[in-house]
């Protein structure tokens, strides 16, 4: 009797598991991510005490060493009207991107995305959580950028926005997002969730995407951003990012523009150029001293050689400042800096 009961129970458990697995197969849990590593050489030879060199944009900052980016793991699933994404990363690239204030340790895990979403209607979705920022052209994940080093606009803008947002899709060509967010890059907000953000997405013609972004709040400040890209031919793509940021309490800000041009010579080899002009604004510091803004122009040429999930990125970059903001090997101020970089990015 006991054996019969056990056998029957096992059968029912197995049947339930199989049936659930079949249902889950239609909407499987997706597991994806990436790992990346790089070598960079600053031609000036300058290296600080912590191993960094002249060009101070996000990530890829270690001089003359084989360094690592991050391991990034993304879990996501969509079942009916509900979906979620949980993305966590480990490594120096991750540590340089986000996390609550006071977090330290380059190998500590950081949340890149953690949110849930629900389709209220076929056109309207509500999303809440901690999300990659909607502002700007470049992203944290190396799989999302053509160039391995990042722009000054990316470095100085928000990385993540935690909050709640509504996305309304008017048509294939027009959608609108509005939301309330915490301060930039914060899991929690000491002065309340008071940043307002909005994004208008328009497709004027097929192949041309336009994003007009705005985020404003205290003490984060206000940033207006235009991100657009046009696939001119099957092989040639042109992108543009322009932004203006004003810090709260007249504490300065920045403005800039970056042009991205990419050409696919073959299915596996593309060459890209990024030209950026970035300026900081004049402001008075806490002691009342005027700090004059300055401009830096950056020119980057990157190759993308792909072999399935692996991308090899050789890159050369030349930055030219209005002022002597860089250091040479003799630790003397200089207006220019240049670097050579090789990166490997594996997406899974």
């Amino acid at each position, binding site marked *: 009797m006991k054996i019969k009961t056990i*056998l*029957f129970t096992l059968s029912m458990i197995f049947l339930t598991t*199989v049936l659930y697995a079949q249902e889950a197969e239609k909407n499987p849990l*997706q597991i994806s991510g990436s790992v990346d590593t790089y070598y960079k050489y600053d031609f000036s030879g300058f290296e600080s005490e912590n191993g960094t060199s002249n060009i101070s944009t996000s990530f890829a900052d270690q001089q003359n060493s084989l360094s690592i980016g991050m391991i990034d793991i*993304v879990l996501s699933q969509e079942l009916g009207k509900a979906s979620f994404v949980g993305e966590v990363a480990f490594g120096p690239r991750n540590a340089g991107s986000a996390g609550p204030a006071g977090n330290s340790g380059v190998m500590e895990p950081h949340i890149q995305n953690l949110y849930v979403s629900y389709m209220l209607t076929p056109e309207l979705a509500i999303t809440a959580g901690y999300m990659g920022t909607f502002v700007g052209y470049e992203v944290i994940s190396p799989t*999302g950028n053509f160039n391995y080093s990042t722009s000054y606009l990316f470095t100085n803008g928000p990385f993540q926005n935690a909050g709640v947002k509504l996305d309304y899709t008017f048509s294939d060509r027009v959608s609108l997002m509005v939301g309330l967010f915490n301060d930039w890059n914060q899991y929690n907000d000491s002065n309340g969730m008071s940043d307002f953000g909005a994004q208008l997405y328009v497709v004027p013609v*097929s192949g041309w995407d336009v994003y007009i972004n705005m985020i404003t709040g205290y003490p984060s400040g206000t940033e207006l951003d235009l991100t657009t890209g046009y696939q001119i031919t099957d092989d040639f793509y042109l992108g543009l990012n322009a932004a203006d940021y004003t810090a709260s309490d007249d504490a300065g800000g920045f403005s800039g523009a970056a042009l991205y041009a990419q050409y696919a010579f073959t299915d596996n080899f593309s060459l890209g150029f990024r030209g950026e002009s970035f300026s900081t604004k004049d402001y008075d510091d806490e002691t009342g001293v005027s700090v004059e803004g300055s401009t830096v122009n950056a020119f980057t040429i990157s190759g993308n050689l792909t072999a399935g999930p692996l991308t090899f990125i050789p890159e050369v970059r030349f930055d030219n400042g209005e002022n002597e903001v860089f250091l040479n090997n003799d630790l003397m101020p200089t207006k220019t800096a240049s670097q050579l970089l090789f990166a490997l990015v594996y997406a*899974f």
Partner: protein
Amino acid sequence: MFKFSISLLVFCLLIPFKGYPQSSLDYTFTSDGKLLFSEVIEVEDSKQNDLYSLAVESFSADEKIKKDSKDKTISIAKSFTLHDKGILSRIPYAEIKCQLFVEFKDQRYRYQLKDFDFIPYARNRYGKYETVERKRKSLESLIQSSNDWEDQRQEFDNWISSEIENLVLTMEGRLAEESEKTVSEVIEIKEEW
């Protein structure tokens, strides 16, 4: 009870083995290099109007169809997601869009699956996969130029086969229903009752 449990357990073990991959389809191309799946299906004792009406009724509920009552044709936009076999799970690889175009004549109809477009997926800044519309291209260019197509071919072929099968079985099913209605409506009134 014991035999029932054993039977149920054996049944459960067989469920995962639900089928084997179908063989690859033969691809045919038009004179201008476009991929086309086409076939004429014969339907005895049928009229063009009836076939057209049945098709409109059958497919209108589930899908957006464009119908031409003058030429007796219907057109349905179809789409399908191809997957990549990731290390730990299947992830979206591309969306395939095409047109299912069906024409009707007396005693036959012809379907064409054509105008195939390939739109790759990419992971966006929010960690979700979405189509990259600006990289939309004809599927033919991918089939003819890329070695990667062989990895996705079986899934694509299975979908094409299922779409054709669905069309044919749906039409057969509706025709059978109509035939039964016609038969059941015939009543012979006997003089001698």
